[in-house]
């Protein structure tokens, strides 16, 4: 606890500064347009925000539905302790996606048009509907944490309300909620891949495949546990509690299976398409492919298959970092680096683009910090230090 008090004020100060720094470009954007704060252009209409905030953001929030599934559907109570933080980060992750879109969209206050003008053929439409609904589901899934805390508080008006009623309702519909969450996630995680199916001639053949949706889903599932390992390791460090090693290694154990399937599918697909040779010939873009596959897929498979590594906190943590890195690179590849630009254009993100994304992440960290302070996030799993 001492650690927390000392480190966080400086931490929050830095985060607060980042948030403010991110606000400046947002103001400029609403005055002078997207061109004034970004290097986006007609040749590269989707840039850092879509790759980072949307593509990475949604995938990295996959810890929510995977853990909810593991705990509530597959009944692995052991992981209960990490479920709530996972849901919280997922919920925040999705909120950030939506916030980021409010900057990125040309007509942000028409974002709700997606709900009334349906183009059921558009993968983006599906993503939008799923993301919106799923965010609601996540909010409900997470709400018990809030209600519990509210019911404990001895505050004037709030005290009068019986917080156990909503709590009981939520608990009653918890399983349908979790199932809905999994269904929605399956759909939109894969639809993010479907969106790219529309670019058969601009997305490089090393990545373009009709099974992209499946690859997206698999990689999202694999990164779910990795993200949970990553976040909980960091948060426990920050807040001074420790997570049971068997929870960590248990999460880590699942990863090689999913990644293995993912890798197999990726290779077989290239083979079937007759494009496997591209991994050698398509220089220099193939370097990205190799980096993604070696660092983000093959290495973690090897590492996490070894019990010794699974039993080490550092081993599990760094393996997860590799998985996350691989996924981030993959999402950047498909949505930016390997996606052809119109002739005559170049793109490198403007610092303000990055600043906005950083500010959003800082926002999330602040909220997480507040949640840990004021809500029962980690108490389920407060394991005794080894």
């Amino acid at each position, binding site marked *: 606890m001492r650690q927390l008090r000392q480190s966080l004020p400086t931490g929050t100060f830095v985060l607060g500064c980042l948030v403010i720094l991110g606000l400046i470009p947002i103001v400029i954007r609403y005055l002078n347009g997207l061109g004034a704060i970004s290097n986006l252009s007609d040749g590269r209409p*989707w840039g850092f925000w879509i790759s980072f905030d949307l593509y990475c953001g949604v995938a990295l929030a996959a810890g929510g539905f995977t853990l909810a599934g593991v705990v509530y559907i597959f009944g692995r109570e052991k992981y209960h302790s990490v479920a709530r933080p996972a849901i919280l980060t997922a919920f925040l992750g999705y909120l950030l996606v939506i916030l980021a879109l409010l900057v990125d969209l040309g007509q942000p206050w028409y974002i709700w048009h997606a709900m009334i003008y349906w183009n059921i053929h558009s993968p983006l439409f599906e993503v939008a509907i799923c993301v919106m609904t799923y965010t609601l589901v996540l909010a409900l899934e997470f709400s018990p944490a809030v209600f519990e805390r509210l019911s404990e508080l001895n505050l004037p008006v709030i005290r009068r309300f019986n917080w156990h009623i909503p709590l009981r309702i939520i608990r009653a519909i918890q399983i349908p909620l979790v199932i809905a969450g999994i269904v929605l996630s399956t759909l939109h995680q894969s639809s993010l891949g479907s969106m790219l199916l529309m670019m058969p001639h601009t997305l490089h053949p090393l990545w373009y495949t009709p099974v992209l949706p499946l690859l997206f889903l698999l990689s999202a599932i694999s990164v779910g546990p990795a993200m949970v390992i990553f976040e909980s390791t960091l948060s426990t460090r920050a807040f001074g509690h420790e997570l049971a090693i068997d929870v960590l290694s248990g999460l880590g154990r699942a990863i090689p299976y999913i990644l293995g399937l993912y890798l197999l599918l990726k290779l077989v697909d290239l083979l079937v398409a007759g494009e496997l040779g591209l991994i050698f010939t398509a220089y220099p873009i193939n370097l990205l492919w190799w980096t993604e596959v070696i660092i983000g897929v093959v290495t973690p498979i090897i590492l996490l298959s070894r019990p010794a590594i699974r039993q080490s906190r550092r081993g599990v943590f760094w393996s997860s970092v590799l998985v996350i890195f691989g996924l981030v690179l993959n999402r950047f590849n498909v949505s930016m680096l390997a996606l052809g630009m119109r002739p005559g254009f170049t793109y490198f993100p403007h610092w303000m683009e990055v600043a906005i994304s950083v500010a959003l992440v800082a926002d999330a960290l602040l909220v997480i910090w507040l949640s840990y302070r004021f809500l029962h996030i980690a108490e389920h799993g407060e394991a005794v230090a080894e």
Partner: protein
Amino acid sequence: MSKGTLYDATKCIGCRACQVACKQWNELPAEKTTNSGTYENPPKMTAYTFTKINFTELEHNGKFQWVFNKQQCMHCQEPGCAEACIVGALVKTEGGPVTYDEGKCIGCRYCMVACPFGIPNFEWDKPLPWIRKCTFCADRQGAGLKPACVTTCPTGALTFGERDELIAEAQRRIAEHPDKYVNHIYGVQEVGGTSWLYLSPVPFEEIGFPTLPSAPVTINAERAMAAVPPVLVGVAAAMAGIYWLVQRQQKIGQKAGEEEKQKEKVK
């Protein structure tokens, strides 16, 4: 009944009257340009330039050539932009034009990424930007007029009419002057066909046309989207099933556990 326009590069004199007529009809502002060593300007199509003539100097069949080609939205038969558009703001109309409804658009720019020809453009300099592209002068067509660019074209490089008839006309021209044209009508097949069709004296890839197969860009996405309902039902059912199984097993396990305990007690 679907309209199209045939652009014949062997007849185009690169005068760019079409570029100006388009700006005039669509009330588009002039862009600030510089001369960068070519007649071509503005350098690229933008939200304020819906059509543009490209100038290419090249050698073909041992003869030096200066070939012009007009770029604008192709008004695809199976437009990627319309399929992509989240709110259905872009729509392929029966008459040919792919129209845009700014009352719906949210500015997500998916259409821009999804267009195989790189056509839709964005008002990067506006606080509340819209997508902009050639409208095929749908408004003029509605009033029984030809597109502004076609009307203004002095030479007959642009012909407006029924798409089928234009294809026949293009075939006729190739047959009549096989020496003047490459034997390819661009837009008949490409990505499922486009309302704008092209004839050229040199291979299309040499004047900057993308080489595209006849499959529409939309087919894979369409298939994926068709899988959505079954996936939805399937995953929901599977999860419910697993939950039920797991619960049952746990109950059995609990019972067994309790029995064990009792047994122990008994012991």
